[in-house]
């Protein structure tokens, strides 16, 4: 193998900002892909020594152990309040929250909306897999209509459980938001696009423009009861219809141009 490596150029390997600790996620879960993208960006921006990561309660409760950066885990839903406290106390640090749909869009809705509306210089990566993963597949605020979960066993009925909540569309109404984009990582081609979106959300903070958030539509093969490949297809066919991909807010690109940042 070493002979082989000598004749080759390294294209892609584990980013330095990951701790190397094995992820605790189920096989095929998209969390790991998004972790890797964030770590690559921390490496590329040289932010490892400046980053403070706030993990949520949920499957990614251990996220702070997977990254080789300083971090903490917030109470359920409070990541953006914790991050606000960090950023206000240490504006020179790069503060990142990583949150799921139950955390960010149900119990933590107030924190999400107010941190965004204040334009906190924080970058948030929001994993939307339409289900509560860690607690075993209960209905999430983003569960699709008709979708069966352990607490909507007859399928989500809007008369009973209301509608899936659209966070990116809400972000659009908040003046403090500098960047908001919804992406997915279910196909290889999606992954560089998702990385570019998260990069813009990094710039929202780094160029002092405002709050940056990227929603990543993700699979939960375990709680959806599908194999990982099938779950990806299900996401493409169902979730994207409910949660249209695209850029919802972008005040960053212009500032990047002004400042000559590529």
């Amino acid at each position, binding site marked *: 193998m070493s002979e082989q490596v000598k004749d080759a150029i390294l294209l892609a390997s584990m980013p330095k900002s990951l*701790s190397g600790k094995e992820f605790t996620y189920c096989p095929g879960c998209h969390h790991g892909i998004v972790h890797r993208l964030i770590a690559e960006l921390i490496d590329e921006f040289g932010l*490892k*020594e*400046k*980053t*403070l990561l*706030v993990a949520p309660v949920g499957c990614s*409760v251990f996220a*702070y*152990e997977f*990254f*080789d*950066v*300083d*971090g*903490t*885990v*917030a*109470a359920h839903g*409070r990541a953006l*309040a*914790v*991050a*606000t*406290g*960090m*950023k*206000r*106390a*240490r504006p020179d*640090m790069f503060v990142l929250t990583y949150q799921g749909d139950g955390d960010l869009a149900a119990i933590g809705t*107030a*924190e999400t909306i*107010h941190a965004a509306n204040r334009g906190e210089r924080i970058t948030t990566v929001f994993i939307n897999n339409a289900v509560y993963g860690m607690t075993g597949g209960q209905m999430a605020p983003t569960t699709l209509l008709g979708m069966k979960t352990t607490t909507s066993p007859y399928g989500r009925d809007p008369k009973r459980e209301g509608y899936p909540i659209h966070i990116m569309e809400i972000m659009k109404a908040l003046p403090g938001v500098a960047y908001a984009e919804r992406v997915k990582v279910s196909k290889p081609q999606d992954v560089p696009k998702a990385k570019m979106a998260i990069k813009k959300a990094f710039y929202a903070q780094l160029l002092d423009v405002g709050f940056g958030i990227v929603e990543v539509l993700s699979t939960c093969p375990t709680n959806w009861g599908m194999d990982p490949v099938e779950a990806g297809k299900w996401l493409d066919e169902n979730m994207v219809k409910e949660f249209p991909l695209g850029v919802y807010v972008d005040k960053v690109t212009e500032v990047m141009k002004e400042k000559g940042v590529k």
Partner: protein
Amino acid sequence: MGEKIMVKGTEAIGEAAIRAGCTVYFGYPITPQSELTEYMARRMPQEGRVFLQAESEVSTVNMMYGASSVGVRVMTSTSSPGFSLMQEGISYMANARLPAVFVDVVRGGPGLGDIQPSQGDYFQVVKGGGHGDYRLPVYSPSSLQEAVKLTIHAFDVADKYRTPVVIFADGMLGQMMEPVEFPDPVDLSTLPSKDDWALTGARGRKARYVTSFNIDPYELEKMNLVLQETYRKVEAEEKKWEEFMTEDAEVIIVAHGTVGRIVKSTVKMAREKGIKAGLFRPVSLYPFPYERLSELAEKVDIVMTVEMSAGQMLEDVKLAVLGKARTPFYGRLAGVIPTPAEILEALMKEIRR
């Protein structure tokens, strides 16, 4: 150190916090403490420090968690229902070992209650309303000068033991005006370093985290034991109380905070009637000065507790007295302030029994 100036209670606590090196203040309006939050909104920017009004008490306490985790001195002020909302976050901060100072300006409850002075938060502040095995050092001042001293002390205790600390106040203390002498502001560079645990960025060292979480019960138990060890130290080193005319006392009245102050008048009135009364005023509610009260109880027949509650500190008094004396109780509820005369009347009734 300067001359004495007339200040309001809320301002005294706020100014003391600033002089203690409080760098970040988060708060949410609630009567009867809003003036303290307003004071900080005015003063913190003048000092180049951070004031932020949060969207709720729930957010406030979590913002404090964040600010404390990066190593700065942080405070908030709230009143009873707001403190209830902060309990979850305080429990997280306790296990994550994050120092912070909370001021609870206690009002009448339960529920929305009213906005008058009360001590009905004793259970939720001193015994902990949050989940899990944790304690909070709690200080109950009875004058503004003492409030200044204890506020500054609270920051030092918080840092020394890495724990949230509470100043137990009420609207009476907040609204009163008294001459107060403030110490010189602390030089921030002289505060003890938090570099060994705070999240300052993984520069020249391994990445670290601050957390209240451990999925392994054996590991979590170790974290719990660190807390318990800390509390034993706090109990050994941080007990504070005041005694007034206890040397020859035949009856002891136990009262804390502003009620302690009222009881001083009762003691004087009782002595005029020939009753040798004395006041025992716990200043640290946790750690409660059990041993000293226990000693005093050996020499008297009556240890009467007076509170603006239905009898919450009373349980700690009974634990101290352990049946060595009678432990009657007199309290007013819902924000009604007892007068020295009615306390005396209650005492006389007990003596005649």
